[in-house]
């Protein structure tokens, strides 16, 4: 029988994967967006897990919201990416260091 811990482990693995992806990725901004999606999915998994094991459907309803927002966010992110590419001719993370002092 699977316990809540198993689900939570999966979700934290997903979360960690996303975080590590953000941190060590130096190539492509699209990968960054994908990693953010991954983190959001890890959160969703948590929600579902707790909804299931606590018998509260509120968590599942929240997942819908989050998925909707994530889709919107991905759309905006990709739009920003297009603009970025137009402006700087690159979507390489290495080149995006304008924040440096």
């Amino acid at each position, binding site marked *: 029988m699977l316990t809540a811990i198993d689900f939570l482990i999966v979700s934290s693995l997903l979360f960690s994967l996303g*975080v590590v992806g*953000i*941190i*060590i*990725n*130096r190539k492509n901004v699209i990968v*960054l967006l994908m990693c953010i999606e991954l983190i959001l999915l890890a959160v969703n998994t948590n929600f579902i897990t707790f909804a299931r094991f606590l018998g509260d459907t509120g968590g599942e309803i929240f997942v819908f919201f989050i998925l909707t927002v994530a889709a919107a966010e991905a759309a905006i992110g990709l739009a920003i990416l297009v603009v970025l590419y137009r402006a700087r001719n690159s979507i390489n*993370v*290495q080149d*995006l*260091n*304008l*924040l*440096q*002092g």
Partner: protein
Amino acid sequence: MTTLYALSLITVAAPLLASLVTGLFGKSIGTVVSHRIAVTGVGLAFFLSVVLLGIVLQQQISMHEISLYAWAVSGITFEVGFLIDPLTVLMMVVVTFVSLMVHIYTIGYMHDDPGYTRFFSYISLFTFAMLMLVMANNFLQLFFGWEAVGVVSYLLIGFWFKRETAIFANLKAFLVNRVGDLGFLLGIALVFMLFDTLNYQEVFAKLSTTDLKLTVSLWPGMDVSAITLMCILLFVGAMGKSAQIPLHVWLPDSMEGPTPISALIHAATMVTAGVFMVARLSPLFELSDVARSFVVIIGALTALMMGLVGIVQNDIKRVIAYSTLSQLGYMVVAVGVSAYSVGMFHLMTHAFFKALLFLAAGSVIMALHHQQDLRHMGGLKAYLPITCVTAWIGALALCGIPPFSGFYSKDILIEAVHFAAIPGAGFAYYALLAGVFVTALYTFRLIFLTFHGKARWSHQKGHAVHEPGWVVTLPLILLAIPSAVIAWFTVEPMLFAANGYFKQSITIDTAHDVIGQIAYHYPGAFGFALHAVVTKPFWLAVAGIATAYLCYVRFPKVPARLAREFSVVQRVLVNKYGFDEFYQWFFAKGTRNLSLWFWSVVDIRIIDKSLVGGVVHAWGASARLLRHLQSGYLNHYAFAMILGLLGLLSFWLWG
């Protein structure tokens, strides 16, 4: 008494007003009007001083206090006020008389000087300041006058401010006087601490109720009598102003100023302020034998040592300046042995004959077109008869030859020291006796080198050497008269009369009342003059004059030979005992070097580079380190956020 109020106020205000008018509007009103205003102002002050003297004598006024106004009240009252008593009015008459003579003389002496009106403004201002000093009824006003005369002295020494030596001299005078003033100010602070008031009469009144054994702790374990310390500190102020060893160095240099002010400020009036102050504060000084011993020893050292230096000086004004130092030493010794009235008496006669000698020297300098070197004078008696005669009178008075006024003051002074019993008086007696010989020697060296012998100057075409105008000779004659005769009719009332002139102003403890002892067998003015022929000072003076005659008239080669034979002594005297060199080296250079060290090490290295620069460098260095964190890469920032989140969570979980 409103007359006294009005009289004293106008006496002070007249010179001040004259000074302001000539100073501010001198350029527009012209030289003639300027000197008329100045002479009128001082003349009025002199006239009113004489009137005041008359009133004081007639009505037997003692310590009449006039309060003008209080300018600050805070627990104690700071006020401007006058104390009219015999001591004050005597000083007022002397100051205004000499000042008037000098004003008149200046018309001739500064005749074509571009700073003519400025000079009149300064000397009128000086008269005002000196009057404020002598008429003060409290210590603070005394200090005001004290500083004001110091400022005017500074301005006048540096009157020819384009001369480098003059600027050096006035700065030196100012700085040396600061040393004395520091002591003076501390003394006044101590007076206030002990008596809680700065008014003379209140202080004197409180003396009887104050615990005289009070001590002040200089540093832990070192307790000194408060009264003694106070008197010595006040006297340090007098040492600065009256140029006593070791603060005497400024006075000879002050001869850089024009001759009239050398006569007025640096001979007759300002430099005697110290003596006046001690006499004024006689009730305080009477309480401390230690302080008076100190006064006596300083005075005696000054009297003898500075007189000796006078012998080797070649500048005519410097010879007289050293003579002034020496005579100030005499006065200081007199007040030190409680013979305050004799000190004041000598102050008065000295004011006349020393101002006379200075003005005579000025006349000679004018006649020779600003030649001041004794080696280039000689034989002037034929050309400057009035100057010569008046200078002779001044010189005889200075040497103490009867019946000139200086004889009475000096002889009684030495006699008083002879009777005194306080420690140091024995030494002082012999120092002063030796001083009499020295005085006669340098004075007549000056007289003989200037007026007698062969002329060692050359005629310039178109510049005949002749007596300057009457504005110069009149003051000489008017000063010569009191130099010769004033003592005849003042010596008895001032010093010996049962109800003496100074009875009310000066307090003398009967235990050391030396004047009383002399008065006991005083034979009267005429008898005293006759008596002179059996006293030591007289014969010493005669010996001094004879020596001067032999050395500088009969055998003019002797001095040079003596100088060769005793070259060590000669060198010590020419170098003035090395005071100047020592001060230059130790204080002037030492301060400079110390300041340089502070500047280069403390200021630049420690403050600028370590503290101020250090903070900047530390920020810079840490910023250089920290900027590596700001890579600009999004993933680095995300990583930092994660780390922060981890930190917060673990803190929440386990913290």
